[in-house]
């Protein structure tokens, strides 16, 4: 039987305060539970997470006290039951009322933490319904939008033997409600993010195939950078010279190079088939639209005894509804487009760098005053859940720059396939180690460094990093444009 309705009139006035995340806790809670339209459980989940986050130091200190452990478990049990009732708002409000007058202000905070745990478990049971959804809180409750992300699969980390796993985990570096309370969901506050994460599931057929290959307890990656001898058309527009220098963009692979490029592509696919590659990656600005179409055709029609499950086809400047973007496309082994990622962070060549690299300036059609990539920037980071983990394919600076770093960590991305064009791999090495420590992320970078110089460069063609000790960040300097390795080989287990 439900309890009698909560006597809201007793608290008249309480919910008229201008509330914020730092307002007294009971005021915010009462306003939330009595507000109109009625609060949903998912809203309360997001609200409590935010309330606990701003009081995290206080909460952590409470939970260190053994005396609080039992009440916390008791409150959680009560909250679990209350949340199943039709009049859950009234019943929670009854509890709050009971503790407003108490002499220990921490009691209400611990109750919030316990209710948050109960909501976390409740919504875990409704994962399919909740994953990827966003909740907007009203201005009266402090506002803000929250994205609900389930924890990613961790198959690559799971392949690392226990003694080789990083001793320091993400929990040691963070002080947030998820770590402190042992919550399941990753909640991401979206309101201040210039680039918004967008969650999707990997195609079920690709997922199933990858899961099957993972059962061998290994996986083979190929990082291919095969087009060093080819010529690309690059268009600069000095007439639009501005604060960022001269805009430039790659237009296409020159017709005289197309035949050789197609030959290279077929050779790569055949070698990958022979070497039983599961995931194949190409670098930035190498496979133009024609060459990507050729790749798709080969994947669809070529009789290969073994084909990769996932192909990250590098990136290229393409026309998207009248705007140029730097777009990375990911295909299935059957040539089906799975998703694409556009570059989010602007790339500029400052005057200081341009002055030192006349060769680069000539290549890109810019002058000593510098230049910038002539693209429209994306406001979204695509994150894709599958049996390999939470995959993102940031392009070059999106990965090694600082702008998206916190977003990768907040969204728990743990597999990064990165197309790059850089002469300096050090920032990529640092980022790989950083994300490995923070999120247990594995990174694989395929680089087209040779595009930046007239002479063919065999240096820094690829990078592979697993969050393991003492496996260093491995880079590839080789005349062979295809680097094939298995996870076990990277770990030194074979």
């Amino acid at each position: 039987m439900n309890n009698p309705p909560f006597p809201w009139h007793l608290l008249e006035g309480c919910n008229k305060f201008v509330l914020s995340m730092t307002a007294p806790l009971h005021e915010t809670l009462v306003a939330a539970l009595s507000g109109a339209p009625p609060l949903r459980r998912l809203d309360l989940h997001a609200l409590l997470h935010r309330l606990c986050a701003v009081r995290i130091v206080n909460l952590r200190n409470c939970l260190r006290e053994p005396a609080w452990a039992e009440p916390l478990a008791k409150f959680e049990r009560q909250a679990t039951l209350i949340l199943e009732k039709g009049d859950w708002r009234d019943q929670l409000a009854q509890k709050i009322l009971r503790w407003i007058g108490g002499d220990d202000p921490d009691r209400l905070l611990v109750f919030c933490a316990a209710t948050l745990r109960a909501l976390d478990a409740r919504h875990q049971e409704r994962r399919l319904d909740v994953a990827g959804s966003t909740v907007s809180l009203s201005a009266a409750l402090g506002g803000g939008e929250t994205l609900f992300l389930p924890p990613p699969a961790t198959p690559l980390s799971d392949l690392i033997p226990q003694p080789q796993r990083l001793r320091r985990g993400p929990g040691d570096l963070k002080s947030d409600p998820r770590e402190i309370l042992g919550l399941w969901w990753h909640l991401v506050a979206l309101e201040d993010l210039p680039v918004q994460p967008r969650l999707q599931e990997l195609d079920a057929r690709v997922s199933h195939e990858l899961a099957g290959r993972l059962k061998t307890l290994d996986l083979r990656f190929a990082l291919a950078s095969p087009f060093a001898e080819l010529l690309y058309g690059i268009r600069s527009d000095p007439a639009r010279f501005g604060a960022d220098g001269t805009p430039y963009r790659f237009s296409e692979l020159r017709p005289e190079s197309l035949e050789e490029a197609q030959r290279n592509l077929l050779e790569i696919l055949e070698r990958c088939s022979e070497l039983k590659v599961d995931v194949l990656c190409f670098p930035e600005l190498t496979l133009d639209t024609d060459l990507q179409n050729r790749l798709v055709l080969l994947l669809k029609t070529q009789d290969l005894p073994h084909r990769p499950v996932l192909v990250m086809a590098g990136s290229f400047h393409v026309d998207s509804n009248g705007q140029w973007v730097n777009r990375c496309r990911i295909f299935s082994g059957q040539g089906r487009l799975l998703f694409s990622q556009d570059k989010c962070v602007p790339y500029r060549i400052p005057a200081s760098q341009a002055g030192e690299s006349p060769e680069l300036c000539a290549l890109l059609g810019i002058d000593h005053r510098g230049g910038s990539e002539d693209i429209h920037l994306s406001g979204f980071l695509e994150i894709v859940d599958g049996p390999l983990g939470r995959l993102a394919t940031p392009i070059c600076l999106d990965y090694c720059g600082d702008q998206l770093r916190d977003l990768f960590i907040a969204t728990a991305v743990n597999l990064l396939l990165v197309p790059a064009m850089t002469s300096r791999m050090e920032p990529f090495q640092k980022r790989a180690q950083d994300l490995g420590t923070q999120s247990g992320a594995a990174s694989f970078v395929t680089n087209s460094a040779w595009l930046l110089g007239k002479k063919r460069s065999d240096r820094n063609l690829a990078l592979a990093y697993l969050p393991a000790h003492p496996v260093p960040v491995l880079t590839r300097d080789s005349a062979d444009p295809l680097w094939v390795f298995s996870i076990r080989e990277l770990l030194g287990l074979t």
Partner: protein
Amino acid sequence: MSSLQFVDLSPTESVERAQQAVAEGHTDAWGALDRHLRWSLISHLQNRTENQDALGVALLQASRWADHEEREPWATRWAYLLELLRDADRQPALASELRAVGPEGRAAEMLRILVDHPNPLRPTELVERMGLSIQQISNLGRKLETAGLISRRSSGGKAIWLLPTARGFKLGELLPAPSPLSKEEEIDEAPETSFWQKLDEPVAKIA
């Protein structure tokens, strides 16, 4: 109505048989395979007894085949069934939970005690109530926790409290109330427990 049926075949066998049948000109094999795959999926969702891997392989083969032959709606439909199979793997199922607790077993009894008691309990309290060792309670707790039926909460890694989840409450209410152990049951159980423990010991030691 189609006379072609794949009843009693495994999902993978049915795909192979359908491919043969279509090659021989029996176009109604597409519909028959669809019926069989849908039945297999529903049966898996309800009972969780179908071999999930085999069903996944069959759906993958079927959708690839339909894709290659450019046969709609089958290509889209079977890819969607594969999605549902993946989703089902992430969704708690009463059939799996009942199997995990074993309705008459000690895990069921422990869950029922936790549901009935007004507060979370510590493993030591369950030792007293159930007449089991702390190790046995710990094993049962892990089993129930893995099934998503209880949560374990600890304080600085020392004291632990066990409490049911929402699903644990729902399932616990369906289970029979625990009855106190009779002397005979206690006596019966003691040698059985030591027998199982001895299985872990080296052979020479047992001899």
